[in-house]
């Protein structure tokens, strides 16, 4: 019995001989438990070794294998072929990023923006390790925990039209991580992060399209994080008006 198959229409781009990206169609077996990444590996291993893409853990946690599948940013290791049967499936590099080759995008921009929001624990009074852990109740942890689940997969940037239109926007994942530390009861760095986070390239650029949170494979909700930071910034402003001599 001939095996059922499905077609993948895959973006190809090589900077040396493609002025613009083109599409190439491949036919792969449609296995019930195959994900899009399995299909790409099948293509690379048996049909066309020149196809380039990133992947590693194949369990939705390393964040390497994000691509636009039929126009929506997805982790290809967690996107089953059967969802798209009978196909064809359009597999493109993540939107809004420069394409290096085929399905590989350049995320240097994010890597440079991330340190700007100081995504690390800031302490004014660093206590020695001999003093033990900083206490934090499960309830205090719950306040930020969701925002600590970001795997930097960049799906949110690919889903964000604001980032596409205004590339200077710091963007969903980096701002969500800033929010994660701002909410951490052990952290004392919110004031230090304000210059970047509350800048016009930061939270104020966001128009709350909300797609970042829709596509997030880890339910981090960056859109929520950004709006919550806007509320904090507005309250800070209000405080500075009502209580201008307050220390801050």
């Amino acid at each position, binding site marked *: 019995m001939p095996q059922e198959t499905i077609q993948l229409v895959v973006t190809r781009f*090589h*900077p*040396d001989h493609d002025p613009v990206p083109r599409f190439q169609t491949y036919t792969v077996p449609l296995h019930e*438990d195959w994900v899009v990444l399995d299909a790409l590996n099948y293509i*690379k*291993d*048996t049909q*066309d*070794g*020149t196809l*380039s893409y*990133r*992947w*590693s*853990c*194949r*369990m*939705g*946690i*390393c*964040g*390497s294998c994000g691509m636009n599948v039929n126009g929506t940013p997805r982790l290809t290791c*967690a996107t089953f072929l059967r969802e798209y049967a009978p196909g064809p499936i359009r597999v493109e590099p993540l939107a809004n990023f420069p394409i*290096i*080759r*085929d399905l*590989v995008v*350049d*995320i240097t921009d994010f*890597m440079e923006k*991330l*340190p700007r929001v*100081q*995504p*690390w*624990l800031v*302490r004014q009074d*660093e*206590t020695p*390790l001999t003093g*033990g*852990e*900083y*206490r*934090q*109740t*499960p309830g*205090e*942890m719950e306040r*930020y*925990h969701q925002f*600590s689940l*970001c*795997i*930097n997969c960049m799906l949110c940037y690919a889903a964000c039209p604001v980032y596409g239109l205004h590339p200077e926007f710091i963007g969903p994942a980096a701002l969500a*991580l800033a929010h994660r*530390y701002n909410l*951490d009861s*052990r*952290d004392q760095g919110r004031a230090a992060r304000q210059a970047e986070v509350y800048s016009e390239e930061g939270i104020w650029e966001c128009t709350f399209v909300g797609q970042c949170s829709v596509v997030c494979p880890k339910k981090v909700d960056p859109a929520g994080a950004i709006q919550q930071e806007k509320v904090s910034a507005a309250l800070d402003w209000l405080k500075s008006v009502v209580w201008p001599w307050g220390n801050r």
Partner: protein
Amino acid sequence: MEYPVHDILIIGGGAAGLRAAIAAAEARPDISVALVSKVYPMRSHTVSAEGGTAGVLRSDDTFDSHAYDTVKGSDFLTDQDAVELFVRAAPEEILQLEHWGCPWSRDPDGGIAVRAFGGMSVKRTVYAADKTGFHLLHTLFQTSLRYSNIRRYDEWFVTALLVDDGRILGVTALDVRSGQFLPLLARAVILATGGCGRVFAFTTNGMIKTGDGMALAYRIGAALKDMEFIQYHPTGLPGTGILITEASRGEGGYLLNAQEERFLQRYVPSRMELGPRDLLSRAIITEMEEGRAFQGPYGAYVQLDLRHLGERLINERLPFVRELTQEYLGIDPVREPIPVRPVVHYSMGGVDTDTEGKTSITGLYAAGEVACVSINGANRLGSNSLSECLVFGARAGRAAAHGAADAPAPRAEVIAGRAADEERRVAAWLTRAEGTERLAALRDDLRHGMERGVGVFRTGEGLREVLGKIHDLRGRLARVTLDDRSRIFNTEWTAALELEFMIDVAEAIAIAALAREESRGSHTRRDFPQRDDVRFLKHSLAFWSREGPRVGYRDVAITRWPPEERKY
């Protein structure tokens, strides 16, 4: 030609590499630390670790207890002085991570919580739900961004280590993005490339874990120690090999055979599901061989039953297990048992180092899974490996920082010729004439061969067969041609270089396994079922040579706990 020069070069951006980078940058703020990784640091395989990291933090626990559990778990093949040093350093590292913001799970009073783990006699595994590795890695990565003297080479693939007269000079590396080949010079190099699980077909390990660091060190004369000890984790998902954390048993999950029996009562009655991994994996395979397992599309399996734990506990402590099983199998562990089977997970062996990460090559250090300090012996206890990355990553980082101060600056003129040779070797992949072999086919043959011959149970015959296969693969490798002749982000090219690493490492594993004519820890020979302390209470050391690997032995450091029969 001017080459980039750094004081310390760290290869690998996982837990051990990042911890080493931070330790070095803190120990000596005046030195330049370079972190070279073939992937962005947050993609490193540490990210997939789930269950936790062990350390003595509670008053009901002692260093001696952690050390003894580790020594016994290892089937007495650890160096006991190293283990004692390790258990004493682990709590401080766990607290350090907490001070850097790691969201360790908490007790109601705000203290760090602990959970039970296999082979540990008390609860001593610190965890961040069941995404411990993920949180640990991202905490380290984000913290590393604070240090202006850490420079990263993201997506650079190291092809060789450069040595001169027994001293490390740096590495040759490929910028994957541009295809540019460049020597990177350093006074000290730390290997932190992780393990080699991808040498096997069915593994929890990510695509990147191809044993690069082991092969790099091996090729310049460092010994690979105890490579025959490959850990099979008892609970992987059939088909994908996705890891289902030991924490699911730590939190009270059951293993059931097809007769709905908690069969471990016949193997590890005193510990049941919390027995060490080697015993559990053997027990499961035995159930399969004796016809008491389930049969599925991917062969035999047993069940991991979490239903009695309840939805609330599963959501709170094991959310990733639920996420993974729902997403990949369509199974909700709150309502259905999870099919599992043993899966290659971890390499106890690695580059031979001392407790400061020093190898036999001056200036070359190693830490994490790539290294073998000898705290894991013949079987690692679950949750010791993340602690190992932290403890020995930090120690190697500090040692290298201080060592680099005394080291002479690497001289570029020594390097030029060697780098040119290496570039020719690497670039030859792009210009080879038409061959008859496909890269992926060779890789699959290697991985399946290792799976068959170097499984949970091994025989001399099977191991000799694997070695023959590896010999053939070397021949076939010369006939492989790549489809992709471009230099720009050519992942087929790097895969070819990885396959060369994998073949070297696989051979070291098989030859050490063949030489060890006894059964100990994870190494079980059907033809030598007993432990043999007279002949083999020793570390194996595999050395590369032109004629093929050579195996030597070294005594185990036994300071306090004499070997005894290992019963649970």
